[in-house]
């Protein structure tokens, strides 16, 4: 069976979906690297933040294409409304619904990030935590709304993305558990200096 004009949209939707998933995985891992103040080899410090932001915009573009091709495709009945209002699609109500949830969360992240100078640190940060929710929802949508990621090399791709996120999140959690609370920081810093007589530095900023 070759690719006709009607199936082209369906294939495009599935392909852009896969690319979006990979990009979103990279965005989440990079976001964690920014928090942990790590830089990528060969890139300056700002490179991590810059790449995180640029890839997130690229991911938005691919998600937009993924959604638009799915809506335009006559093979499946997914309307515009179903793309943003969860669980209103007649086709694969649950899994497409999760896709809509993920899209809404991503939308909130991107919009607040573009407006972060206006809305203030606290609000921006609170919304940004939703990223940890958006990704697993997107993964569930990817794995079960079509059978693509359930066998073959796409299965391995899906597992790799999940592994990357789990490892990065575990790393982030470990760092938060190890970091002393703000009020304990001076005592911890002094204790370390008195014990080792070696400089190092204590980090401020939220856990």
């Amino acid at each position, binding site marked *: 069976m070759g690719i006709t004009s009607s199936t082209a949209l369906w294939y495009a939707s599935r392909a852009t979906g896969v690319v979006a998933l990979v990009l979103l995985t990279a965005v989440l891992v990079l976001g964690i690297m920014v928090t942990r103040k790590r830089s990528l080899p060969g890139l300056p410090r700002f490179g991590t933040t810059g790449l995180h932001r640029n890839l997130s915009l690229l991911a938005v573009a691919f998600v937009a294409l993924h959604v638009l091709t799915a809506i335009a495709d006559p093979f499946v009945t997914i309307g515009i409304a179903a793309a943003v209002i969860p669980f209103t699609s007649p086709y694969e109500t649950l899994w497409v619904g999760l896709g809509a949830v993920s899209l809404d969360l991503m939308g909130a992240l991107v919009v607040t990030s573009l407006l*972060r100078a206006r809305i203030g640190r606290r609000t921006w940060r609170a919304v940004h935590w939703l990223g940890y929710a958006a990704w697993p929802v997107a993964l569930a949508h990817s794995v079960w709304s079509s059978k693509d990621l359930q066998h073959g090399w796409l299965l391995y791709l899906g597992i790799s993305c999940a592994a990357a996120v789990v490892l990065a999140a575990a790393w982030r959690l470990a760092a938060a558990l190890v970091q002393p609370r703000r009020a304990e920081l001076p005592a911890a810093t002094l204790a370390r200096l008195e014990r080792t007589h070696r400089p190092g*530095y204590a980090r401020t*900023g939220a856990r």
Partner: protein
Amino acid sequence: MPDRARLRLNPVACAGHGACAELLPELIGLDEWGYPLVADGEIPAALERPARRAVAACPALALRLTSR
């Protein structure tokens, strides 16, 4: 003559990421603990765009451009 902007750092929000020092080395340096040393005074016209970039780059939103 319009007021030139100044850089203002919020030391409580600052977590020492260092992006600002990378993008505006003429006005921002880093101390031995990784925290920014921000030059006082008005920003020269030539550095206004890099200053805006540095402010936008801060992951902690700790740097601001202000007129006072």
